[in-house]
């Protein structure tokens, strides 16, 4: 589903959203607890917010406030202990493993702080990985992988392995991989966390381009520049939403 | 000692009078102790177990299969003893029975007249052996004398072939075990890469790190060797128990000698420590951040 198709499906006209249309993301009373040895850690203690299709939302807060936990729930990588997470009308927290896996593969693109590229594959092969899993034919996925690498400015580096790429280049490959199956939603966990200021700015520009083309972006970040690049900011503290700067 | 080797048929008899042909030859010779009517023989344990005979039982020995007990080549004997087979590897697979009887008895039953197959001669010392050997062969009454040692060498050829076969199999299994050991130790050290990275980042020297890993590998090898020795010993007990039962022999089929144990332990220690050292050295030379995967 392309961003435009999704926008049409959920009734959004432009990137700012149409008042009254159902949101792309609806988080309602979400709590998440972890057991750490003898203790229970309450990572999220009742978080609720909506995100319209085509929005760029930054989630900020001090370390341990639950930002990454929230991202994992949105990406169906984890399940809430209580509450619901709905994306495009589907209750992501109630999905079984197979449905959640398919959701991650086709609906969401995930960008991690540490890139998480496969070290033994080339840049192009890393981008091809989700398409291969989705059953895309070899010729088609190779062509699309090249197209995505060109989009992120790494066409000449397609045969290089991650160890041969700089941090910024690795993150761009990771973004290209996240876009492989044309997800409507891009989730990024500290995408500039491992990068210097100049490289970080390049990544922010890239995300900006994607947002302008209609991709809904949700980033978790400590980076003030990145937090300001989007239109909306949610401040979190101690597992709760402290402030929502719409 | 003279020996006649022949095949006899054995038929049991319950009580009764001794068969014909048991007339004593010695009665005609004054001064010689009379031969009893029913003479004793010794049979091997297999025959005892398979026929179910006991000490004192009487059986009829037939020189020719199918003959009746009244035949001229038949003799009623009494079982006076049971004999255990020696641990002779060349006889392990032979399922034949053994009966020991008086020489003249067998000569008569086998229609051998006054002949034997071979003599065994005991001499005073090795010099005497050589003199007797020379003298007998020179006389050349249609037979040859051989040293027992030479006979043993020739007749143990089967055993030597088996020994060579076992050695070849042993080499192959040692190679397989060595490769397996090397692989496992390599994996074991590789598993510790993050610990090594952390130690190096803390400032621990390469030498200390390598030493620690080699010590670990040595302990694992030592423990493994001890366990292996125990398992090997237990398995040899099992092998001997089983095959001694199958072949009905006291022969030992497998033996863990001090030499074998030393060889096994030395080899496994050498391989374990060697593999551990090589893997540890390679890891210690890698940059710590690279070990973390960065």
């Amino acid at each position, binding site marked *: 589903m392309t961003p435009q198709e999704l926008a049409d499906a959920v009734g959004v006209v432009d990137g700012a959203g149409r008042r009254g249309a159902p949101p792309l993301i609806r988080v309602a009373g979400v709590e998440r607890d972890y057991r750490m040895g003898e203790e229970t850690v309450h990572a999220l203690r009742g978080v609720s917010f909506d995100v319209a299709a085509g929005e760029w939302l930054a989630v900020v807060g001090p370390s341990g406030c639950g930002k990454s936990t929230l991202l994992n729930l949105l990406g169906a990588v984890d399940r809430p202990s209580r509450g619901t997470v709905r994306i495009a009308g589907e209750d992501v927290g109630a999905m079984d493993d197979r449905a959640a896996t398919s959701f991650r593969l086709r609906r969401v693109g995930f960008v991690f702080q540490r890139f998480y590229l496969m070290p033994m*594959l080339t840049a192009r092969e890393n981008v091809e990985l989700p398409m291969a899993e989705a059953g895309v034919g*070899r010729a088609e996925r190779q062509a699309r992988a090249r197209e995505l690498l060109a989009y992120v400015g790494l066409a000449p580096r397609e045969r290089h392995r991650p160890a041969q790429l700089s941090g910024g280049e690795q993150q761009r490959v990771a973004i290209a991989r996240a876009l492989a199956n044309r997800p409507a939603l891009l989730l990024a966990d500290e995408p500039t966390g491992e990068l210097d200021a100049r490289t970080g700015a390049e990544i922010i520009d890239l995300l900006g381009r994607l947002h302008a083309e209609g991709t809904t972006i949700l980033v978790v970040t400590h980076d003030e520049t990145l937090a300001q690049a989007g239109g909306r900011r949610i401040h979190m503290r101690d597992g709760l939403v402290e402030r929502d700067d719409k | 000692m003279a020996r006649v080797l022949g095949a006899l048929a054995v038929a049991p008899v319950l009580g009764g009078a001794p068969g014909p042909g048991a007339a004593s030859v010695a009665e005609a010779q004054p001064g010689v102790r009379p031969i009893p009517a029913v003479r004793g023989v010794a049979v091997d344990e297999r025959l005892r177990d398979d026929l179910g005979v006991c000490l004192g039982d009487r059986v009829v020995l037939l020189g020719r299969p199918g003959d009746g007990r009244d035949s001229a080549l038949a003799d009623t004997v009494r079982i006076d003893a049971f004999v255990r087979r020696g641990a002779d590897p060349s006889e392990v697979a032979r399922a034949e029975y053994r009966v020991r009887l008086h020489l003249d008895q067998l000569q008569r039953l086998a229609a051998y007249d006054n002949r034997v197959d071979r003599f065994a001669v005991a001499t005073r010392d090795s010099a005497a052996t050589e003199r007797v050997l020379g003298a007998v062969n020179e006389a050349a009454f249609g037979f040859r004398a051989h040293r027992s040692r030479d006979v043993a060498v020739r007749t143990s*050829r089967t055993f030597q072939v088996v020994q060579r076969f076992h050695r070849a*199999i042993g080499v192959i299994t040692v190679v*397989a075990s060595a490769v397996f050991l090397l*692989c496992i130790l390599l994996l074991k050290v590789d598993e510790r890469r993050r610990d090594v990275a952390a130690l190096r980042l803390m400032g621990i020297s390469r030498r200390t790190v390598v030493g620690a890993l080699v010590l670990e590998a040595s302990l694992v090898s030592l423990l493994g060797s001890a366990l292996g020795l125990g398992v090997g010993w237990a398995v040899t007990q099992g092998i001997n128990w089983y*095959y001694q039962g199958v072949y009905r022999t006291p022969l030992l089929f497998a033996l863990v000698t001090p030499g074998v144990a030393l060889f096994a332990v030395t080899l496994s220690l050498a391989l374990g420590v060697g593999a551990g050292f090589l893997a540890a050295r390679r890891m210690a030379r890698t940059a710590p951040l690279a070990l973390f995967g960065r």
Partner: protein
Amino acid sequence: MRLALAAATLLRHRTRTLLAVLGVAVSAALLLDMVMLAGGMRESFRDLLLVRGYQLRLSPKGTLPFDSDATMERAAALLAAVRADPRIVAVSPILGGQLHVLGAAPDGGESGPAATAFAMGLDARVQGDYELVRGRHAVAGAELVASPAFLRATGAGVGDTLDVAAGFDPQLRQYAGRCRAVVVGEGRFFYTPGEQPVAALPLATLQAMRGEEGRDRLSLVMARVADGADVEQVRAELQRRVPRVSAISTATALAQVEQRLSYFRQLAFILGAISLAIGFLLVTTLVTVSVNERVGEIAVLRAIGVSRAHVVQQIVLEGSALSLAGAALGLALGLVTARYLNAILGDFPGLPAAFAFFVFRPIDAWRALGLLVLSGVLAGVYPSWRAASLPIATTLREEAVG
């Protein structure tokens, strides 16, 4: 893509992969050898027994053919009893004994035997003991067919005449019979060791040469049963009619030889089982360690949407690749070591030259190696499933990758 990923993963740690493949190869070689040994002896011996189609053998009571020097008396009556059975279509009588080739002393007199051979008195029309290589059969009178070892030992060739004697009495130092025999042919003898000099003479000739010890006597009678007849039934009937001999069918002979060589079969089974276990353990250990090292990568794969089943497939593919490569290498290695081991065991004294301990049968080899590859496949299932089932978020947090 999965194949590329598996190959890339294996090549990442070349030394480890190479060692694992080597380990599996040696296990595969040993397993193959043991399978060849377990079935080989039986197959080889059966082929040997049936080389000329004789399914029954009659030997002195309680013995296997040529197990001892014993002979069967009243040979003519015995042969008549055997031939009386209409189900028996061919009968080959054989008398064995020692044959001495006499040399000439320097003074023109007679010296001791220049060579001693094992002699077989046969009926050339029905014999089943040798295959003629050169010349013709010894059909009558003073003729013989010699083995290559006999010709080497005597320095004779086909067409030469030799002074031969049999029935030596060591006390009188006399031979019971002697003659000047012509070497009319060279033969490959099936049942005697390759290095033993062997000569085949007409039965009547050898019987006469052996004197009293050979008159109306035979060492062995081979019989061929008509197609469709029950061999065991014929054997049982013969045994009943002639109780003074032992009637042995191919099946009985096989069973008796198997019993004598059971040690090798059991050794083969035990070593084969151990090889399989070692191969399985090696691949299991390697895959387990490899998976444990890549738990983070596996979590990333799961995070980007690769299903659990595909992760398991991926890892099982790696284990299979190791096993396949090892099995292929092991096949070649196994054939080489089998030849070497066969040569060692071929030194057994008295073993027929045509007998082999290790016999390669493709079906056995594929079964054995297939079992090893299957064990390699299974080795990866549990560790990979376990790793693919770990909670993604926790694993990502704990296992930093990249």
